[in-house]
């Protein structure tokens, strides 16, 4: 009887999970389908799901109009660069907070998190003026710095959580065996925190890839990433849904594929912590 109930519950859970999954995925599927329609089919009422003449016209036009690969390369440099720079700062910070906490460690962590609560537009003008003075407007370096600062609280918090689950005794044993501080972090701590590090890196690359406020406001032509590429296809006057969908599909495809291949690592890192 208990077995039957369990099986039934599993079946219900599976169905519910599939329904939720499909609901979440549906907008992306609809975007992909719309990218293969004509503009007239894209606005048809009632909407056409699959029964339309598939066309690559939108992709061809997007490719003709925009330099996709330059935007793509900018996105790669900015998202990977900001994540790596963030790790360089966050690993020692998280180590210190996890293994040698001070009286104010929790306050510092909360303060860092509180910076995420400020609406970014509040500091747009000061940052814009600083960037202008430093010559960082429309540069990849400028965006790497800004996105690092924006995502740093999240990186530190995630690494701090993983590091806290690693028993301090292991590091102490390494120290007793003569490990230097650098050796302790590089050869003992980081290998044990690989799942957590991987999920932190992946999450931050995704966040930086999708960041639209700063990447639109601090770039013009040279450093504009894929967010600016998508923004160029929206229009208040004229039909643009099919072309915008094609541009969006091209912009999300790399990160979608990366997420697809790394989903096990991502989910494991996010749900089980560092050493479980």
């Amino acid at each position, binding site marked *: 009887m208990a077995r039957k109930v369990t099986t039934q519950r599993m079946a219900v859970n599976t169905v519910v999970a599939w329904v939720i999954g499909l609901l979440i995925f549906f907008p992306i599927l609809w975007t992909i389908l719309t990218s293969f329609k004509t503009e007239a089919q894209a606005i048809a009422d009632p909407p056409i799901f699959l029964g339309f003449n598939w066309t690559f016209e939108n992709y061809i036009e997007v490719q003709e109009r925009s330099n996709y690969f330059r935007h793509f390369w900018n996105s790669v440099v900015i998202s990977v660069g900001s994540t790596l720079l963030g790790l360089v700062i966050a690993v020692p910070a998280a180590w210190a907070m996890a293994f040698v906490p001070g009286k104010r460690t929790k306050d510092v962590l909360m303060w860092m998190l509180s910076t995420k609560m400020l609406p970014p537009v509040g500091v747009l003008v000061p940052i814009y003026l600083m960037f202008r003075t430093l010559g960082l407007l429309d540069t990849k370096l400028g965006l790497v710095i800004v996105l690092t600062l924006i995502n740093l609280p999240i990186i530190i918090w995630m690494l701090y959580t993983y590091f806290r689950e690693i028993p301090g005794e292991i590091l102490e044993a390494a120290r007793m065996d003569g490990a230097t501080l650098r050796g302790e972090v590089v050869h003992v701590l980081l290998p044990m925190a690989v799942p957590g590090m991987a999920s932190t890196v992946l999450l931050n690359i995704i966040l930086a890839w999708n960041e639209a406020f700063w990447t639109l406001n601090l770039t013009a032509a040279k450093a504009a990433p894929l967010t600016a590429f998508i923004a160029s296809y929206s229009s208040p*006057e004229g039909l643009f849904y099919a072309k915008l969908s094609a541009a969006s599909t091209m912009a999300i495809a790399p990160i979608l594929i990366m997420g697809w291949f790394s989903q096990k690592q991502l989910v494991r890192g996010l749900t089980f912590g560092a050493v479980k």
Partner: protein
Amino acid sequence: MTLTLRAGLLACAAGALTASAASAETITIATVNNGDMIRMQKLTDDFTAKNPGIELEWVTLEENVLRQRVTQDIATNGGQFDVMTIGTYEVPIWAGQDWLVPLTDMPEGYDADDILPAIAGGLTTDGTLYAAPFYGESSMVMYRKDLMEAAGLEMPDAPTWDFIKEAAAAMTEGDVYGICLRGKAGWGENMAFLTAMANSYGARWFDEEWNAQFDTPEWEATLTDYLDLMNNYGPPGASSNGFNENLALFQQGKCGMWIDATVAASFVTNPADSTVADKVGFALAPDKGLGKRGNWLWAWNLAIPAGSEKTDAAKAFVAWATSKEYTELVAANEGWANVPPGTRTSLYENQEYLDAAPFAEMTLESINAADPQNPTVDPVPYVGVQFVAIPEFQGIGTAVGQQFSAALAGQVTAQQALENAQTLTTREMERSGY
């Protein structure tokens, strides 16, 4: 060996420096995503062939994003752009701040006098032209000739609001709505339409002392008639409809009439996208017999920010993109119907253009019927037909638009919406020191 290496390195460095000195000057152009601008990007080989020392870098953005981006850059002297695409609203404000380079010494043969007077008037401050129009538009009535005929009515060239109401009632049947109008909140969305409509009703945003005027009978009549039209003969959910939503409805044959930008004429008559392409007629925007029609005036213009260090190259580009020769280039490559409309008198004297664009005459009449310097029945202290050319207007216009959109959605009454509009406008104007 070492000497050879050094000599080689020096030669490379010298070569690089020489190449850098001889390389072309690059100007960055910020522009809006619409059909005419995209067409221009495709035709820039013509410009670079004629100006081999200048290369073009494009930044294309959605209208609202573009507006925020270029405003932020020009206000902080960021210097990111050498040419900016700006609207008729920005030109007088920015020119007054000395943020724009005057276009006084355009190349010989540019013929600035050929620019339509109504358009040039909105781009001129103290007698100086500060931006060159790339394309201009007004608003007009687009209607279904077949439905009008079936209703036993005939659309006059210059209809009144009373006729529009009568026609909307007669054309509403089944899933065809008699009239489609903007309802989405925003100073450039529902307030563009409602401000132009209010002008024809004798209403105005401010009196000559900058006092808000939403407590007047003229505004009450405007909003009441608009709500009557939309609630009785408009599509459901109209409070979230802007240009694109109404365009989609009209193209699918769901609207009997649509009053909106003249630029829509080329979309609704395009058989590739519109199911009613061969059934569309045009008329001037309606009036109330007070001497002003409910049409607006807008132009997308190319201007050079004062912070640009490449003003000569930028002027060369602006002159090329807004010249008579450019319209001929578009016609040769894409046909006369695709030439950017509404900027030059000579275009409307060109028979080939008039033959290719059945909406040309009505577009010109609509543009000429708008007067940004004198937009209302009673005198006003501001410039602008569907907007008030003061920096505070974007915020106030959108806030008032939200009140009127809420009235359309049935969340507040017309009276409440007007009272709220009056209160918030008065408060913001007092805060701004008017």
